[in-house]
């Protein structure tokens, strides 16, 4: 274990073979005042002790609304000698003014290289019969054990952090194919555009706006420099849903089903996340603006005949991992549309 590592916030250190016994003690001590709740297993894979501590803080907040057993597993492969440490913790929150509802967190620090250790740690500490959500943080630098893939119900990644997204997606596809896994792949970078996708789709729920959707000629977006892939995934979604085909990569141009061109303009800006988007047909424009710190998109619709409308739509904080996770938990267990969207823009990543 690194000499300067302060593990206080991880809870009680325990011997790995004694985890269940020690967890039971927590509940025996708190009987009558603490209620243990769990709907999923959330396993988090990270690669530094700093991330281990940050994840603990995040899970403490996450468990306010999502009951789970959390396994936070930090793997430091380049340690001088193999070692494995574990801690147990309970995140308790007041529910209904009187009752403490608690979720368990088991943290692991696995140093050095021991084959099969990681998979064994996950298998041995799952809450039985509950789905396994696996959050892989950072690059997918190695192939996971196919047996572990087969157990995962939902794989969470965040492609915004990937250094080489094209290679990462290729590796991910290979792993999934090898394991013949049915897991749902969920990308938090895709979740970042969820509120925007909902707002845009709501605008085109209105029958008067729908004809313009079929005749879009230009889509322009302003995004923070680190959110280029977020913006591309959004464009991929539009292209996938509207059955556009990529015609040119630079400049980015798609052709719609009628053979018309749709020009895509992506502009980096200093504002966070996806701050501006305009969809324009020959006769109408639909513009959304997200001001920093606002919880809403301001929409302006300019329609033929001089009709202008203003509306607001909920936005989500694209930098806030907790709110992204929160959104993610409420979504269905499918990745079909995401994969379709990705397919449309993978060559642009």
């Amino acid at each position, binding site marked *: 274990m690194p000499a300067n590592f302060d593990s206080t916030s991880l809870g009680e250190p325990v011997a790995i073979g004694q985890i269940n016994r020690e967890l039971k003690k927590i509940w025996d001590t708190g009987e009558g005042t603490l*209620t243990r*709740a769990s*709907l999923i297993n959330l396993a988090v894979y990270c690669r530094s002790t700093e991330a281990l501590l940050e994840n603990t803080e995040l899970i403490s907040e996450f468990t*306010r*609304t*999502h*009951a789970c057993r959390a396994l936070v597993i930090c793997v430091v492969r380049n340690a001088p000698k193999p070692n494995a440490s574990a801690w147990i913790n309970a995140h308790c*929150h007041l*529910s*209904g003014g009187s*009752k403490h*509802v608690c979720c368990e967190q088991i943290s692991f620090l696995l140093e050095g290289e021991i084959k099969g250790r990681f998979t064994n740690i996950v298998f041995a500490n799952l809450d039985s019969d509950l789905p396994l959500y696996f959050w892989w943080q950072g690059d997918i630098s190695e192939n996971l054990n196919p047996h572990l893939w087969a157990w995962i119900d939902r794989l969470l990644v965040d492609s915004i952090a990937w250094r080489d997204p094209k290679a990462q997606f290729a590796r991910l596809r290979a792993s999934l194919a090898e394991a013949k896994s049915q897991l749902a792949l969920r990308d938090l970078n895709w979740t970042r555009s969820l*509120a925007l*996708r*909902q*707002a*845009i*789709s*709501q*605008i*085109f*729920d*209105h*029958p*008067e706006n*729908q004809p313009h*959707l079929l005749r879009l000629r230009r889509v322009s977006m302003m995004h923070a420099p680190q959110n280029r892939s977020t913006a591309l995934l959004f464009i991929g979604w*539009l292209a996938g*849903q*509207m059955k556009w085909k990529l015609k040119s990569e630079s400049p980015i141009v798609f052709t719609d089903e009628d053979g018309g061109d749709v020009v895509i303009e992506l502009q980096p800006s200093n504002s966070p996340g996806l701050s501006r988007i305009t969809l324009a047909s020959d006769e109408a424009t639909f513009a959304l603006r997200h001001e920093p710190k*606002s*919880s*809403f998109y301001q*929409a302006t619709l300019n329609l033929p005949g001089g*009709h202008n*409308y*203003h*509306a*607001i*739509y*909920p936005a989500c904080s694209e930098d806030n991992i907790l709110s992204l996770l929160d959104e993610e938990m409420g979504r*269905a267990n*499918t990745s*079909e*549309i995401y994969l379709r969207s990705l397919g449309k823009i993978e060559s642009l990543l």
Partner: protein
Amino acid sequence: MNATTTSTANPLREGLSSRPLPQPCSVVIFGASGDLTYRKLIPALYNLAADGDLPAALTVVGFARREKTDESFRQELQDAAKKFSRSGLNDEVWKSFSQRLFYHRSEFGDAEGYKTLAQRLDKLDEERGTRGNRIFYLSVAPSEFEGILKQLAAAGLNKAKEGSWARVIVEKPFGTDLPSAEELNTVVNNVFEEKHTYRIDHYLGKETAQNIMVLRFANAIFEPLWNHRYIDHVQITASEPLGVEARGPYYESSGAMRDMVQNHLLQLLSLTAMEPPTDLSADSVRDEKVKVIRCLRPMSPEDVVRDVVRGQYIEGAIGGQEVKAYRQEDRVNPQSMTETYVAIKVSIDNWRWEGVPFYVRMGKRLPKGGTEIAVQFKSAPSVLFNKPTEPQGPNVLVIRIQPDEGISLRMQCKMPGTAVRIEPVKMDFHYGTSFGKASPEAYERLLLDAMAGDATLFARRDEVEGAWAFVDHIEHAWHQHDNPPPLAFYPSGSWGPKEADDLLARDGRTWRRL
């Protein structure tokens, strides 16, 4: 245009919403100065706006007698939303939402007021894209329905233009007996077709009421046992510590039977007892519910004496405080015979429930508040365990509707030790513990459904009339029979009259302890 058309016409919707989409419309609230508007309707619409669930083209027009401007109406509603919204009030949301609120002053009987309403709605359609779709929400006393509906028809507002729709939402009470319900329904259906009529029973909008069907039909373990072979009886309870508060005059004319049993509790009973519907469409679900209502065994006056208990609270204590008797409540007749408690043994004459009584009880001034459905299974054979000399503990599945929504299952378990001693234990699921998020208010779900044209959670005419037909037999035995059963009295803060305990004791059963 229906919701399905809207969602399929918009290819961007795929995967983003699993519910029918609300459509652009104007919601006209009659009785916009009333309590329901301020406490429930506007906070519900505001919360829907805050969650991004409302169609962008939605306007709300308050229709009432008092002199107000759009601005003063908005200001009043802002204060109400601040007080009653479950999510508080966000200035940015309110600023946008309030621009959709308008006030239309008119007497309910003034034809001119409806003509100008029609012009105003047309103008809003033009300006705000509401497409001629209208919901008329009658948040007024039933005595006002006929006048309002006739005026709506005279102004042509009940007939939608080509490609649009016009719907009416009616608040309970849907009549006070079968003839009045039929008359009321005829009045409504003379102006709006049944398929455009939405009768709100807010119990159906509650998360746990909706979960009854999921529990029964999405889990393979319950349905095979859900019949007379395995179920001994069912208890449906709604208990309230409150008295009649300021509603004395209303309660005097309704009583517990009309106020709660005819609508809320019979709705819960039909959801519990219904057959699986062929699909989840509004009419498939309601067809099955109405079949249950039709199978309720009608009660003769003699049956009522035997199988129904009516009670009224006398003085007692609630929460350590002394409380007065019903007859001493404000604007209540000192010799009142109105029931504040009712317990009924209901029989359902169909294949599934032959010989399985449903005990339904509702009471005011009871020790604890709560609504639940308890399904008690038959005892396991006593060959090995459960010998007559040992305490019996049948399995009980409890669906808690409110508060502390959830489900529990009681089962038998061996106590640790060298001897075989069996004790009941409880597996308990709490919505609040497992799902940290608050459920939307019932009105939010119901308003959204009405905008989407989904009537599943609204009572259909035949359901309402069938429930009245059943209840009327009891009411007649109480009020029009030569030899009516006596009214039983119970102290406030107790679990009801002794006669209600006797009703179950006669069958060798007891009420569940809540």
